[in-house]
Protein backbone atom coordinates (compact mmCIF):
# COMPACT_ATOMS: atom_id res chain seq x y z
CA UNK A 1 0.00 0.00 0.00
CA UNK A 2 2.75 2.46 1.04
CA UNK A 3 4.82 1.35 -1.97
CA UNK A 4 2.05 2.12 -4.40
CA UNK A 5 1.86 5.63 -2.98
CA UNK A 6 5.61 6.26 -2.66
CA UNK A 7 6.64 5.08 -6.12
CA UNK A 8 4.48 7.62 -8.04
CA UNK A 9 5.61 10.33 -5.62
CA UNK A 10 9.30 9.58 -6.21
CA UNK A 11 8.64 9.40 -9.94
CA UNK A 12 6.79 12.74 -9.80
CA UNK A 13 9.64 14.49 -7.95
CA UNK A 14 12.21 12.89 -10.29
CA UNK A 15 10.35 14.00 -13.44
CA UNK A 16 9.86 17.51 -12.03
CA UNK A 17 13.62 17.85 -11.64
CA UNK A 18 14.26 16.41 -15.14
CA UNK A 19 12.02 19.12 -16.64
CA UNK A 20 13.74 21.78 -14.53
CA UNK A 21 17.14 20.42 -15.64
CA UNK A 22 16.01 20.61 -19.28
CA UNK A 23 15.31 24.32 -18.88
CA UNK A 24 18.44 25.07 -16.90
CA UNK A 25 20.74 23.34 -19.39
CA UNK A 26 19.66 25.95 -21.94
CA UNK A 27 21.06 28.66 -19.69
CA UNK A 28 24.49 27.03 -19.75
CA UNK A 29 24.64 27.65 -23.47
CA UNK A 30 23.36 31.23 -23.39
CA UNK A 31 23.94 33.62 -20.51
CA UNK A 32 22.79 36.80 -22.29
CA UNK A 33 19.30 36.45 -20.87
CA UNK A 34 20.62 36.69 -17.30
CA UNK A 35 22.67 39.80 -18.08
CA UNK A 36 19.85 41.71 -19.79
CA UNK A 37 17.50 40.85 -16.95
CA UNK A 38 19.84 42.51 -14.45
CA UNK A 39 19.15 45.93 -15.96
CA UNK A 40 15.61 46.39 -14.67
CA UNK A 41 16.24 46.03 -10.92
CA UNK A 42 19.29 48.27 -11.33
CA UNK A 43 17.15 51.03 -12.86
CA UNK A 44 14.47 50.78 -10.16
CA UNK A 45 16.91 50.81 -7.27
CA UNK A 46 19.43 53.33 -8.60
CA UNK A 47 16.98 55.82 -10.13
CA UNK A 48 13.48 55.37 -8.69
CA UNK A 49 14.70 54.29 -5.26
CA UNK A 50 17.31 57.06 -4.92
CA UNK A 51 14.91 59.81 -6.08
CA UNK A 52 12.07 58.75 -3.80
CA UNK A 53 14.44 58.27 -0.87
CA UNK A 54 15.60 61.89 -1.30
CA UNK A 55 12.06 63.24 -1.64
CA UNK A 56 11.15 61.97 1.82
CA UNK A 57 7.58 61.44 0.61
CA UNK A 58 7.35 57.81 1.71
CA UNK A 59 6.93 57.16 5.42
CA UNK A 60 8.39 53.75 6.08
CA UNK A 61 8.76 53.94 9.85
CA UNK A 62 12.27 53.48 11.16
CA UNK A 63 13.46 51.76 7.96
CA UNK A 64 15.16 54.01 5.37
CA UNK A 65 13.22 54.06 2.07
CA UNK A 66 16.05 52.47 0.08
CA UNK A 67 16.12 49.59 2.58
CA UNK A 68 12.32 49.33 2.35
CA UNK A 69 12.27 49.21 -1.42
CA UNK A 70 15.17 46.75 -1.99
CA UNK A 71 13.16 43.58 -1.16
CA UNK A 72 10.21 45.07 -3.08
CA UNK A 73 12.38 45.46 -6.17
CA UNK A 74 13.63 41.90 -5.80
CA UNK A 75 10.01 40.69 -5.65
CA UNK A 76 9.15 42.90 -8.60
CA UNK A 77 11.95 41.58 -10.78
CA UNK A 78 10.98 38.00 -9.87
CA UNK A 79 7.40 38.85 -10.91
CA UNK A 80 8.44 40.53 -14.17
CA UNK A 81 10.73 37.69 -15.21
CA UNK A 82 8.26 34.96 -14.24
CA UNK A 83 5.10 36.52 -15.64
CA UNK A 84 6.46 36.45 -19.21
CA UNK A 85 7.54 32.83 -18.92
CA UNK A 86 4.38 31.81 -20.80
CA UNK A 87 5.92 33.21 -23.99
CA UNK A 88 8.42 30.31 -23.92
CA UNK A 89 5.55 27.87 -23.47
CA UNK A 90 3.76 29.30 -26.53
CA UNK A 91 7.03 29.14 -28.47
CA UNK A 92 7.41 25.47 -27.53
CA UNK A 93 3.84 24.89 -28.63
CA UNK A 94 4.49 26.50 -32.03
CA UNK A 95 7.41 24.11 -32.35
CA UNK A 96 6.45 20.53 -31.50
CA UNK A 97 8.18 20.42 -28.11
CA UNK A 98 5.02 20.62 -25.98
CA UNK A 99 3.48 17.77 -27.99
CA UNK A 100 6.61 15.65 -27.48
CA UNK A 101 6.45 16.20 -23.72
CA UNK A 102 2.73 15.44 -23.62
CA UNK A 103 3.18 12.18 -25.54
CA UNK A 104 5.76 11.03 -22.99
CA UNK A 105 4.48 9.24 -19.86
CA UNK A 106 5.50 12.22 -17.69
CA UNK A 107 2.77 13.34 -15.23
CA UNK A 108 1.25 16.68 -16.31
CA UNK A 109 1.77 18.15 -12.84
CA UNK A 110 5.49 17.31 -13.08
CA UNK A 111 5.71 19.05 -16.48
CA UNK A 112 4.09 22.20 -15.09
CA UNK A 113 5.90 22.24 -11.73
CA UNK A 114 9.25 21.44 -13.38
CA UNK A 115 8.89 24.41 -15.70
CA UNK A 116 7.90 26.64 -12.79
CA UNK A 117 10.82 25.44 -10.71
CA UNK A 118 13.29 26.18 -13.49
CA UNK A 119 11.92 29.73 -13.69
CA UNK A 120 12.48 29.90 -9.94
CA UNK A 121 16.11 28.88 -10.21
CA UNK A 122 16.64 31.30 -13.12
CA UNK A 123 15.39 34.23 -11.08
CA UNK A 124 17.99 33.57 -8.38
CA UNK A 125 20.30 35.66 -10.57
CA UNK A 126 17.97 38.59 -9.83
CA UNK A 127 18.55 38.06 -6.11
CA UNK A 128 22.31 38.24 -6.64
CA UNK A 129 21.93 41.50 -8.60
CA UNK A 130 19.64 43.08 -5.98
CA UNK A 131 21.97 42.01 -3.14
CA UNK A 132 24.94 43.52 -5.00
CA UNK A 133 23.13 46.82 -5.60
CA UNK A 134 21.82 46.91 -2.03
CA UNK A 135 25.34 46.45 -0.72
CA UNK A 136 26.51 49.29 -2.96
CA UNK A 137 23.68 51.58 -1.74
CA UNK A 138 24.32 50.83 1.93
CA UNK A 139 21.15 48.87 2.66
CA UNK A 140 21.34 47.13 6.08
CA UNK A 141 21.16 43.52 4.96
CA UNK A 142 20.71 40.54 7.21
CA UNK A 143 23.52 38.09 6.38
CA UNK A 144 22.50 35.30 8.75
CA UNK A 145 22.42 31.91 6.97
CA UNK A 146 18.79 31.38 7.95
CA UNK A 147 17.78 34.75 6.48
CA UNK A 148 19.66 33.97 3.23
CA UNK A 149 18.02 30.55 3.07
CA UNK A 150 14.60 32.17 3.50
CA UNK A 151 15.30 34.62 0.67
CA UNK A 152 16.47 31.73 -1.54
CA UNK A 153 13.34 29.68 -0.87
CA UNK A 154 10.92 32.60 -1.19
CA UNK A 155 12.46 33.74 -4.52
CA UNK A 156 12.26 30.22 -5.98
CA UNK A 157 8.70 29.71 -4.73
CA UNK A 158 7.51 33.13 -5.88
CA UNK A 159 8.94 32.61 -9.36
CA UNK A 160 7.35 29.16 -9.49
CA UNK A 161 4.02 30.72 -8.48
CA UNK A 162 4.05 33.54 -11.04
CA UNK A 163 5.53 31.48 -13.89
CA UNK A 164 2.82 28.86 -13.36
CA UNK A 165 0.26 31.68 -13.42
CA UNK A 166 1.89 32.77 -16.68
CA UNK A 167 1.67 29.23 -18.07
CA UNK A 168 -2.06 29.19 -17.28
CA UNK A 169 -2.52 32.45 -19.22
CA UNK A 170 -0.51 30.96 -22.11
CA UNK A 171 -2.77 27.88 -22.12
CA UNK A 172 -5.83 30.14 -22.36
CA UNK A 173 -4.69 32.76 -24.89
CA UNK A 174 -2.42 30.42 -26.97
CA UNK A 175 -0.81 33.14 -29.15
CA UNK A 176 2.20 35.37 -28.44
CA UNK A 177 0.41 38.56 -29.47
CA UNK A 178 -2.51 38.02 -27.11
CA UNK A 179 -0.17 36.87 -24.36
CA UNK A 180 1.92 40.07 -24.53
CA UNK A 181 -1.25 42.13 -24.15
CA UNK A 182 -2.61 40.14 -21.22
CA UNK A 183 0.84 39.96 -19.57
CA UNK A 184 1.19 43.74 -19.61
CA UNK A 185 -2.33 44.21 -18.27
CA UNK A 186 -1.70 41.85 -15.33
CA UNK A 187 1.83 42.78 -14.32
CA UNK A 188 1.34 46.41 -13.38
CA UNK A 189 -1.81 45.91 -11.22
CA UNK A 190 -0.09 43.04 -9.38
CA UNK A 191 2.93 45.25 -8.78
CA UNK A 192 1.13 48.47 -7.78
CA UNK A 193 -1.50 46.69 -5.66
CA UNK A 194 1.23 45.33 -3.39
CA UNK A 195 3.56 46.58 -0.69
CA UNK A 196 6.59 46.48 -3.03
CA UNK A 197 7.37 50.20 -3.29
CA UNK A 198 5.12 51.72 -0.63
CA UNK A 199 3.59 50.48 2.63
CA UNK A 200 -0.01 49.29 2.54
CA UNK A 201 -0.81 51.72 5.41
CA UNK A 202 -0.88 54.65 2.98
CA UNK A 203 -3.25 52.88 0.56
CA UNK A 204 -6.97 53.73 0.32
CA UNK A 205 -9.13 51.07 2.01
CA UNK A 206 -10.25 49.37 -1.25
CA UNK A 207 -6.68 49.04 -2.51
CA UNK A 208 -5.58 47.72 0.85
CA UNK A 209 -8.15 44.91 0.55
CA UNK A 210 -6.89 44.05 -2.94
CA UNK A 211 -3.28 44.12 -1.77
CA UNK A 212 -4.12 41.61 0.95
CA UNK A 213 -5.50 39.26 -1.73
CA UNK A 214 -2.39 39.71 -3.86
CA UNK A 215 0.22 36.95 -3.39
CA UNK A 216 2.99 39.42 -4.30
CA UNK A 217 2.28 41.28 -1.03
CA UNK A 218 3.16 38.14 0.96
CA UNK A 219 6.26 37.55 -1.17
CA UNK A 220 7.44 41.10 -0.45
CA UNK A 221 6.64 40.75 3.25
CA UNK A 222 8.61 37.51 3.51
CA UNK A 223 11.55 38.98 1.59
CA UNK A 224 11.53 42.22 3.60
CA UNK A 225 11.62 40.50 6.96
CA UNK A 226 14.32 38.07 5.79
CA UNK A 227 16.56 40.41 3.80
CA UNK A 228 16.71 43.34 6.20
CA UNK A 229 18.01 43.62 9.74
CA UNK A 230 15.32 44.71 12.18
CA UNK A 231 12.32 44.65 9.84
CA UNK A 232 9.41 42.82 11.48
CA UNK A 233 6.97 40.96 9.25
CA UNK A 234 3.48 42.41 8.81
CA UNK A 235 1.68 39.08 8.44
CA UNK A 236 4.21 36.70 10.03
CA UNK A 237 6.59 34.51 8.01
CA UNK A 238 4.40 31.44 8.58
CA UNK A 239 1.39 33.19 7.04
CA UNK A 240 3.53 34.42 4.11
CA UNK A 241 4.77 30.89 3.39
CA UNK A 242 1.27 29.43 3.76
CA UNK A 243 -0.21 31.86 1.21
CA UNK A 244 2.67 31.39 -1.28
CA UNK A 245 2.63 27.58 -0.95
CA UNK A 246 -1.12 27.17 -1.22
CA UNK A 247 -1.41 29.54 -4.18
CA UNK A 248 1.41 27.69 -5.97
CA UNK A 249 -0.19 24.29 -5.37
CA UNK A 250 -3.59 25.49 -6.63
CA UNK A 251 -2.01 27.09 -9.72
CA UNK A 252 0.07 23.96 -10.51
CA UNK A 253 -3.07 21.83 -10.46
CA UNK A 254 -4.97 24.30 -12.68
CA UNK A 255 -1.93 24.49 -14.99
CA UNK A 256 -1.72 20.68 -15.21
CA UNK A 257 -5.39 20.57 -16.25
CA UNK A 258 -4.92 23.21 -18.94
CA UNK A 259 -1.43 22.35 -20.26
CA UNK A 260 -2.59 19.39 -22.42
CA UNK A 261 -4.72 21.85 -24.44
CA UNK A 262 -1.47 23.21 -25.90
CA UNK A 263 -0.82 19.84 -27.54
CA UNK A 264 -3.92 20.06 -29.71
Amino acid sequence: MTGTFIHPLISFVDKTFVIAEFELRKLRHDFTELITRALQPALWLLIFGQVFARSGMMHTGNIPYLDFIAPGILAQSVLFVAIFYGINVIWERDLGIVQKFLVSPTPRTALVLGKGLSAGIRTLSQAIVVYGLSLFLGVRLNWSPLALLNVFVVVVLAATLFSTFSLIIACIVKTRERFMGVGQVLTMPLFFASNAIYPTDIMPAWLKVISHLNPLTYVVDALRTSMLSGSPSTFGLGMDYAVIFLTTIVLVFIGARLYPQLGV
Partner: protein
Amino acid sequence: MCKCDPYADRPAVYNPAVTTPVVEIEKLSRRFGTFTAVDSLTLVANAGEVFGLLGSNGAGKSTTIKMLTTLLPPSSGEARVGGFSITTQPVEVRRAIGYVPQAVSVDGSLTGYENLLIFAKLYDIPRSEQQARIREQLTFVDLTADAGRLVGQYSGGMVRRLEIAQATLHRPRVLFLDEPTVGLDPIARDAVWKHLIDLRDQYGTTLFLTTHYLEDAENHCDRIAIMHMGKLAALGTLKELETSLGTGSHTLDEVFVHYAGATLDSGGNFRAVSAERTTEQRLG
Protein backbone atom coordinates in the same frame (compact mmCIF):
# COMPACT_ATOMS: atom_id res chain seq x y z
CA MET B 1 9.77 -0.48 -15.52
CA CYS B 2 9.63 -3.71 -17.44
CA LYS B 3 13.02 -5.37 -17.67
CA CYS B 4 11.78 -7.90 -20.21
CA ASP B 5 13.06 -8.04 -23.78
CA PRO B 6 11.43 -5.05 -25.47
CA TYR B 7 11.60 -6.78 -28.87
CA ALA B 8 10.14 -10.14 -27.82
CA ASP B 9 6.79 -9.57 -29.49
CA ARG B 10 8.13 -8.02 -32.67
CA PRO B 11 8.87 -9.66 -35.96
CA ALA B 12 12.58 -9.75 -36.78
CA VAL B 13 11.70 -9.32 -40.43
CA TYR B 14 8.41 -7.89 -41.58
CA ASN B 15 6.26 -10.59 -43.12
CA PRO B 16 2.96 -9.40 -44.63
CA ALA B 17 1.54 -12.91 -44.26
CA VAL B 18 1.79 -12.75 -40.47
CA THR B 19 -0.48 -10.05 -39.12
CA THR B 20 -0.55 -9.00 -35.49
CA PRO B 21 -2.74 -5.94 -34.95
CA VAL B 22 -0.89 -3.18 -33.12
CA VAL B 23 -3.04 -0.16 -33.96
CA GLU B 24 -6.75 -1.02 -33.89
CA ILE B 25 -9.12 1.83 -34.66
CA GLU B 26 -12.85 1.29 -34.21
CA LYS B 27 -15.39 3.92 -35.30
CA LEU B 28 -13.13 6.73 -34.13
CA SER B 29 -14.59 10.23 -34.51
CA ARG B 30 -13.56 13.71 -33.57
CA ARG B 31 -15.82 16.72 -33.86
CA PHE B 32 -14.91 20.37 -33.36
CA GLY B 33 -18.26 22.09 -32.81
CA THR B 34 -20.32 21.24 -35.85
CA PHE B 35 -17.28 20.25 -37.95
CA THR B 36 -16.42 16.55 -38.06
CA ALA B 37 -12.65 16.22 -38.59
CA VAL B 38 -12.57 12.42 -38.30
CA ASP B 39 -15.73 10.51 -39.05
CA SER B 40 -16.16 6.96 -37.76
CA LEU B 41 -12.73 5.76 -38.85
CA THR B 42 -12.10 2.03 -38.62
CA LEU B 43 -8.81 0.39 -39.60
CA VAL B 44 -6.01 -1.83 -38.32
CA ALA B 45 -2.24 -1.49 -38.68
CA ASN B 46 -0.14 -4.58 -38.07
CA ALA B 47 3.09 -5.12 -36.18
CA GLY B 48 6.18 -4.34 -38.25
CA GLU B 49 4.22 -2.60 -40.94
CA VAL B 50 4.97 0.78 -42.55
CA PHE B 51 1.44 2.17 -42.63
CA GLY B 52 0.80 5.37 -44.56
CA LEU B 53 -2.16 7.66 -44.00
CA LEU B 54 -2.71 9.78 -47.09
CA GLY B 55 -5.11 12.58 -47.79
CA SER B 56 -5.32 16.16 -48.88
CA ASN B 57 -5.07 19.06 -46.42
CA GLY B 58 -7.86 18.85 -43.85
CA ALA B 59 -8.65 15.21 -44.61
CA GLY B 60 -8.29 14.33 -40.90
CA LYS B 61 -4.83 12.70 -40.93
CA SER B 62 -3.23 14.85 -38.23
CA THR B 63 -6.35 14.73 -36.03
CA THR B 64 -6.24 10.92 -36.26
CA ILE B 65 -2.57 10.86 -35.23
CA LYS B 66 -3.28 13.26 -32.35
CA MET B 67 -6.00 10.97 -31.04
CA LEU B 68 -3.83 7.86 -31.38
CA THR B 69 -0.97 9.57 -29.53
CA THR B 70 -3.36 10.65 -26.72
CA LEU B 71 -2.91 14.36 -27.44
CA LEU B 72 -6.57 14.76 -28.31
CA PRO B 73 -9.46 12.83 -26.77
CA PRO B 74 -11.86 11.33 -29.33
CA SER B 75 -15.49 12.51 -29.42
CA SER B 76 -16.61 8.91 -29.86
CA GLY B 77 -15.25 5.52 -30.83
CA GLU B 78 -12.18 3.75 -29.53
CA ALA B 79 -8.65 2.80 -30.51
CA ARG B 80 -6.11 0.43 -29.02
CA VAL B 81 -2.43 1.04 -29.53
CA GLY B 82 0.04 -1.65 -28.52
CA GLY B 83 -2.90 -3.39 -26.84
CA PHE B 84 -3.87 -0.38 -24.70
CA SER B 85 -6.94 1.80 -24.93
CA ILE B 86 -6.28 5.45 -25.84
CA THR B 87 -9.25 6.53 -23.72
CA THR B 88 -8.81 4.48 -20.54
CA GLN B 89 -5.07 3.65 -20.56
CA PRO B 90 -3.37 6.77 -21.97
CA VAL B 91 -0.21 6.43 -19.84
CA GLU B 92 0.34 2.83 -21.02
CA VAL B 93 -0.20 3.96 -24.62
CA ARG B 94 2.40 6.71 -24.14
CA ARG B 95 4.95 4.15 -22.93
CA ALA B 96 4.28 1.99 -25.99
CA ILE B 97 4.63 4.70 -28.62
CA GLY B 98 7.03 7.27 -30.00
CA TYR B 99 5.94 10.42 -31.80
CA VAL B 100 7.62 12.70 -34.31
CA PRO B 101 5.33 15.70 -34.84
CA GLN B 102 5.35 17.65 -38.07
CA ALA B 103 6.83 20.73 -36.36
CA VAL B 104 10.41 20.70 -35.11
CA SER B 105 10.30 18.99 -31.73
CA VAL B 106 13.90 19.04 -30.56
CA ASP B 107 15.31 22.04 -28.73
CA GLY B 108 17.71 24.15 -30.79
CA SER B 109 19.31 25.66 -27.70
CA LEU B 110 20.52 22.26 -26.44
CA THR B 111 23.04 19.84 -27.94
CA GLY B 112 21.94 16.67 -29.71
CA TYR B 113 23.20 14.64 -26.75
CA GLU B 114 21.26 16.75 -24.24
CA ASN B 115 18.05 16.42 -26.25
CA LEU B 116 18.41 12.64 -26.04
CA LEU B 117 19.48 12.61 -22.38
CA ILE B 118 16.38 14.47 -21.18
CA PHE B 119 14.07 12.02 -22.95
CA ALA B 120 16.05 9.01 -21.74
CA LYS B 121 15.27 10.27 -18.24
CA LEU B 122 11.61 11.05 -18.96
CA TYR B 123 11.10 7.54 -20.35
CA ASP B 124 12.63 5.89 -17.26
CA ILE B 125 15.51 4.24 -19.09
CA PRO B 126 17.59 2.92 -16.16
CA ARG B 127 20.48 5.23 -15.31
CA SER B 128 23.03 2.45 -15.92
CA GLU B 129 21.74 1.99 -19.48
CA GLN B 130 21.21 5.62 -20.47
CA GLN B 131 24.65 6.36 -21.90
CA ALA B 132 24.82 3.12 -23.91
CA ARG B 133 21.30 3.69 -25.29
CA ILE B 134 22.09 7.28 -26.29
CA ARG B 135 25.30 6.15 -28.02
CA GLU B 136 23.37 3.43 -29.84
CA GLN B 137 20.76 5.94 -31.00
CA LEU B 138 23.37 8.45 -32.16
CA THR B 139 25.17 5.73 -34.12
CA PHE B 140 21.87 4.54 -35.57
CA VAL B 141 21.04 7.96 -37.04
CA ASP B 142 24.67 8.86 -37.93
CA LEU B 143 24.90 11.76 -35.52
CA THR B 144 27.70 10.58 -33.20
CA ALA B 145 30.16 13.19 -34.46
CA ASP B 146 27.64 16.00 -34.04
CA ALA B 147 26.25 15.00 -30.63
CA GLY B 148 28.06 17.83 -28.83
CA ARG B 149 26.88 20.58 -31.20
CA LEU B 150 23.87 22.78 -30.55
CA VAL B 151 20.88 21.50 -32.51
CA GLY B 152 20.25 25.05 -33.72
CA GLN B 153 23.29 24.52 -35.98
CA TYR B 154 22.00 21.23 -37.47
CA SER B 155 20.72 20.85 -41.05
CA GLY B 156 17.06 19.94 -41.66
CA GLY B 157 17.85 16.27 -42.28
CA MET B 158 19.98 16.06 -39.13
CA VAL B 159 17.15 17.58 -37.08
CA ARG B 160 14.67 14.99 -38.37
CA ARG B 161 17.12 12.15 -37.70
CA LEU B 162 17.66 13.42 -34.16
CA GLU B 163 13.91 13.59 -33.66
CA ILE B 164 13.60 9.97 -34.77
CA ALA B 165 16.40 8.98 -32.38
CA GLN B 166 14.70 10.89 -29.56
CA ALA B 167 11.28 9.37 -30.23
CA THR B 168 12.64 5.81 -30.28
CA LEU B 169 15.02 5.91 -27.30
CA HIS B 170 12.61 3.79 -25.26
CA ARG B 171 12.13 1.30 -28.13
CA PRO B 172 8.44 1.97 -28.75
CA ARG B 173 6.27 -0.65 -30.45
CA VAL B 174 4.73 1.99 -32.70
CA LEU B 175 6.32 5.16 -34.03
CA PHE B 176 3.86 7.80 -35.18
CA LEU B 177 5.21 10.33 -37.64
CA ASP B 178 3.29 13.34 -38.91
CA GLU B 179 4.67 14.37 -42.32
CA PRO B 180 8.21 13.14 -41.51
CA THR B 181 9.82 14.35 -44.73
CA VAL B 182 8.11 17.72 -45.12
CA GLY B 183 10.58 20.48 -46.00
CA LEU B 184 13.50 18.15 -46.70
CA ASP B 185 15.54 18.03 -49.91
CA PRO B 186 15.56 14.70 -51.82
CA ILE B 187 18.88 13.56 -50.35
CA ALA B 188 17.83 14.30 -46.77
CA ARG B 189 14.48 12.59 -47.45
CA ASP B 190 16.21 9.44 -48.64
CA ALA B 191 18.44 9.45 -45.55
CA VAL B 192 15.42 9.82 -43.24
CA TRP B 193 13.63 6.98 -45.00
CA LYS B 194 16.70 4.75 -44.81
CA HIS B 195 16.74 5.20 -41.03
CA LEU B 196 13.00 4.65 -40.72
CA ILE B 197 13.15 1.38 -42.66
CA ASP B 198 16.21 0.31 -40.63
CA LEU B 199 14.18 1.01 -37.50
CA ARG B 200 11.46 -1.34 -38.70
CA ASP B 201 13.94 -4.00 -39.82
CA GLN B 202 16.22 -3.90 -36.75
CA TYR B 203 13.73 -3.29 -33.95
CA GLY B 204 10.42 -4.42 -35.45
CA THR B 205 8.96 -0.96 -34.88
CA THR B 206 5.63 -0.34 -36.58
CA LEU B 207 5.67 2.94 -38.49
CA PHE B 208 2.36 4.77 -38.69
CA LEU B 209 2.75 7.95 -40.68
CA THR B 210 0.93 10.67 -42.50
CA THR B 211 2.26 12.12 -45.71
CA HIS B 212 1.08 13.92 -48.75
CA TYR B 213 4.15 13.02 -50.76
CA LEU B 214 2.73 10.25 -52.92
CA GLU B 215 6.17 8.98 -53.90
CA ASP B 216 7.01 8.43 -50.20
CA ALA B 217 3.90 6.30 -49.83
CA GLU B 218 4.59 4.51 -53.11
CA ASN B 219 8.20 3.67 -52.31
CA HIS B 220 8.04 2.88 -48.64
CA CYS B 221 4.59 2.03 -47.28
CA ASP B 222 3.46 -1.59 -46.99
CA ARG B 223 -0.17 -0.49 -46.84
CA ILE B 224 -1.86 2.81 -47.52
CA ALA B 225 -5.08 4.30 -46.19
CA ILE B 226 -6.53 7.26 -48.07
CA MET B 227 -8.66 9.64 -46.02
CA HIS B 228 -11.11 12.07 -47.51
CA MET B 229 -13.15 14.57 -45.48
CA GLY B 230 -12.56 12.65 -42.26
CA LYS B 231 -13.58 9.28 -43.66
CA LEU B 232 -11.62 6.27 -44.83
CA ALA B 233 -11.88 6.34 -48.62
CA ALA B 234 -9.60 3.40 -49.46
CA LEU B 235 -7.26 0.94 -47.76
CA GLY B 236 -4.83 -1.63 -49.05
CA THR B 237 -1.41 -2.30 -50.52
CA LEU B 238 -0.33 -0.11 -53.40
CA LYS B 239 -1.11 -2.97 -55.79
CA GLU B 240 -4.55 -3.52 -54.30
CA LEU B 241 -5.37 0.16 -54.56
CA GLU B 242 -4.21 0.35 -58.16
CA THR B 243 -6.20 -2.69 -59.20
CA SER B 244 -9.26 -1.36 -57.37
CA LEU B 245 -9.65 1.19 -60.16
CA GLY B 246 -10.39 -1.56 -62.66
CA THR B 247 -8.66 -2.70 -65.81
CA GLY B 248 -5.56 -1.05 -67.19
CA SER B 249 -2.50 0.16 -65.30
CA HIS B 250 -2.96 2.97 -62.81
CA THR B 251 -0.56 5.09 -60.82
CA LEU B 252 -0.92 6.08 -57.17
CA ASP B 253 -1.60 9.64 -58.38
CA GLU B 254 -4.68 8.34 -60.18
CA VAL B 255 -5.71 6.30 -57.17
CA PHE B 256 -5.33 9.36 -54.95
CA VAL B 257 -7.37 11.59 -57.25
CA HIS B 258 -10.01 8.89 -57.54
CA TYR B 259 -10.47 8.50 -53.78
CA ALA B 260 -9.48 11.91 -52.39
CA GLY B 261 -10.88 14.03 -55.22
CA ALA B 262 -9.11 16.53 -57.43
CA THR B 263 -10.71 19.67 -56.08
CA LEU B 264 -8.20 22.44 -55.47
CA ASP B 265 -9.38 23.51 -52.05
CA SER B 266 -10.65 20.63 -49.99
CA GLY B 267 -9.80 21.69 -46.48
CA GLY B 268 -7.15 22.50 -43.88
CA ASN B 269 -6.94 25.73 -41.94
CA PHE B 270 -4.68 28.73 -41.55
CA ARG B 271 -2.88 27.30 -38.52
CA ALA B 272 -2.15 23.98 -40.24
CA VAL B 273 -0.80 25.65 -43.37
CA SER B 274 1.21 28.13 -41.32
CA ALA B 275 2.68 25.32 -39.19
CA GLU B 276 3.65 23.33 -42.29
CA ARG B 277 5.33 26.29 -43.94
CA THR B 278 7.17 27.17 -40.73
CA THR B 279 8.43 23.59 -40.51
CA GLU B 280 9.55 23.69 -44.13
CA GLN B 281 11.35 26.95 -43.47
CA ARG B 282 13.07 25.64 -40.34
CA LEU B 283 14.18 22.37 -41.87
CA GLY B 284 14.82 23.56 -45.39
